[in-house]
């Protein structure tokens, strides 16, 4: 199979994983989603999406910082047309490989390469060294052979080097799966010291009950993600507007809300400015001045919000400095941004023939 064919065949198995700390990749294997431990960021829950899975929250039921593996429970019964299989064949130098993932958030990117070295020792673990271009965001994605079998999990790259990628080999994945499934329990953490699997509910004060060391993953899972300051206030505002904050959160400082036909992006910048933007449509090709007149006259009526143009797109925006944000005013403003964006995009497209935005629905 060529790369294109492999991607098309297995694309439904490829998962995008999002946490407040970043995004990564994963893939379906049986009833689990396999990814890297560093992708789930020590959280008990992450947001996942795939070709056939809308953004949804899924529990991380196994976290293994030693192998850098994590398993996410696939609660809804998704059956990809063609399921991925873990390889059991020996990987050799020069074998063709295909890495699939979401590097830098670019969905479903497949890159082809070869095995540069089948077994490269890093600390006390073996890794498959590949020359396929993998980037941040590829982490947790599958490394496939030419038959489309999973030979590894793309795990790390050497920073500032060209095409030096490393994948955790299939046999470690199989070993972890076997151990985990044998327990028939959820919420399992592998202790990085004694390598035993420990049950989260039995852990006290984050200490491994087998060897007595503090387990960082246990601490992180217990602590969870708790926004503070203006970020918390923003999330409180969104919650008060019935927005599912966990699903809308793109990072610790950005949120995306789809409301009717409108999409609103809220970003909190380091300089303290909070910008809620809705890119409504592109400017039309005819009677453009009429649109400008309409936008400028509507600006006279609006409070909190404003129309502007950037790179030929029409925006409705709300801008505020974090120190001025309050629950009441913020709620009014963001509610208006959601409602008015949903209204104005229709008016601009239907009445002024503005151009509808192309949008990646899986994004």
């Amino acid at each position, binding site marked *: 199979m060529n790369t294109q064919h492999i991607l098309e065949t297995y694309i439904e198995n490829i998962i995008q994983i999002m946490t407040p700390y970043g995004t990564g990749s994963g893939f379906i294997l049986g009833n689990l989603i396999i990814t890297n431990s560093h992708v789930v960021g020590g959280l008990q829950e992450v947001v996942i999406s795939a070709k056939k899975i809308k953004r949804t929250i899924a529990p991380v039921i196994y976290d293994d910082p030693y192998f850098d593996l994590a398993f996410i429970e696939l609660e809804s019964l998704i059956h990809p047309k063609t399921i991925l299989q873990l390889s059991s064949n020996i990987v050799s130098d020069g074998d063709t490989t295909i890495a699939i993932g979401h590097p830098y958030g670019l969905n479903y990117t497949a890159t082809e390469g070869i095995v540069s070295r089948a077994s490269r020792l890093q600390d006390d673990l073996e890794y498959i060294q590949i020359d396929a271009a993998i980037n941040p965001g590829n982490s947790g994605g599958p490394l496939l052979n030419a038959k489309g079998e999973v030979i590894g999990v793309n795990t790390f790259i050497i920073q500032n080097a060209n095409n030096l990628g490393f994948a955790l080999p299939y046999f470690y994945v199989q070993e972890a799966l076997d151990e985990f499934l044998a327990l028939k329990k959820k919420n399992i953490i592998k202790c990085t010291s004694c390598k035993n699997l420990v049950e989260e509910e039995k852990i006290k004060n984050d200490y491994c009950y087998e060897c007595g060391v503090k387990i960082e993953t246990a601490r992180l899972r217990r602590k969870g993600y708790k926004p503070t300051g203006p970020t918390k206030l923003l999330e409180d505002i969104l919650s008060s507007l019935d927005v599912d904050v966990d699903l809308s959160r793109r990072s610790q400082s950005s949120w995306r809300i789809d409301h009717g036909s409108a999409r609103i992006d809220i970003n909190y910048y380091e300089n303290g*400015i909070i910008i809620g933007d809705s890119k409504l449509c592109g400017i039309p090709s005819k009677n*453009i*001045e009429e649109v*400008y*007149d309409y*936008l*400028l*006259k509507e*600006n*006279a009526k*609006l*409070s*909190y919000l*404003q*129309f*502007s*143009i*950037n790179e030929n797109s029409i*925006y409705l*925006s709300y*801008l505020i*400095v974090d*120190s*001025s*944000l*309050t629950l*009441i*005013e913020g709620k009014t403003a963001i509610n208006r941004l959601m409602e008015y964006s949903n209204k104005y995009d229709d008016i601009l497209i239907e009445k002024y023939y503005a151009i509808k935005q192309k949008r990646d629905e899986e994004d």
Partner: protein
Amino acid sequence: MNWFNFFDNTTTTLHHPFGRGINAKLSEDEEELFDKSYEAFENKDILNAYEYFFKSLENFTDEESNENTRTNLIEDKLEFEIFQGCARITGYVTQEHLYAEAIMTKSSSANVSLKRHILDRNYQFTYAYYFMDEEYIKLKLYHDNITMNPQKIFFPLREIALNADFDKEYIRNEFAGIHLEDIEHLEKVDENELQIKYEFMQETIKELDAKIDTLPSNDNAGMQAFFLLNTLYMLDYLLVAKYSIYQKSSKKIQDYFTEENTTMEARNNELRIYINELKAMDFKEFSSNFYNAKYTFNPTDKTLKEDIDNFISESLLKIRWYKNNRYKQIIPIIYKYISFYILYNYGVNPVIKELLHTLVEIQNPSFFTSLGYVELYNEEDESFSKKTIITRVDKIIEPHQAQYKLLETFGEELNFSSLNEFSNSFYLQIQNLNFEEI
């Protein structure tokens, strides 16, 4: 030594604008007014809080208010005006919110390009935005007072004022035939002053052409750049032209430093073409680029003293290189360039600003004497008005010594043996100034 100037320590009361910032002084009570505003905001005494705040923005010339901000309390509403060059910001404050606007031009006169321009500008602003009513295109600002304090309202008002001023100038320059509205507050510049400025510009460009001709025929791009940029910075600082001269000069200087894909020779050529345009400008056209106005906000953000010191050090190193390589003709130009560059690009504190202005006055005596200022340096016999200069330097520094305990006057430390030596010692002394608050 010029003995005629030995006892001359007079100061003039002439007031001409110089450079792009505010020339006037803030109120001596500025900090106290700001604190009172803060306190009143804390106590939810909103209208008084704003009144103190607007008072803290007021600036003065010879102890007299320039009335660059005005307020008028009418029952439960505080009306205000803020002047910033071309722009007049009017608005009101209630217990709940602040509204401010600047009238730009008539809606009926706006063309499609202007409308697009202001919609594009809306995307760049943080607090203010353009709208259109039946009569005018306006820039407006709305802010609630729930969490308000003087720091928080400073930046929104600064944004609307600076941008209304900038955009009005831009509109007049860019969109021919579109008339600016609400500019009755602008004052004409005295005809005699304009004549002096015009002649100075012509003379400066003539001298520039002659000086460039003296440069070695090859490998002189660096020196040409100093000559050309210094001319533009100097004209900008001394003439304080507005409208198209301001806009084009800003653009030419910006392009010079940002167009990385063109050679220095090509960039020099662009500057020379523009300077020749200025040379070809007749007096009538030249005069249409000037007005006097009140200003409230400085356009540049404060620069760290360290950055200024570094720039001086780097420039003095360049001078040393040219000196070692015997390119003496460029040295006085770089000494001038340092002051003009800092005054153009950096938000400097009032002490350094006044000191650099004094140096500019010494380095460019003909322009200042033609405006009626006391001569600080005689170009013919190369003598300084030493006593006046020392007194001036001390008078600039002394009022700030209570605040900055380590700040020392340096008039007596200056080297009066030649203009180059003087400039060199002046910059070194500026580097020595200590603004640490202890």
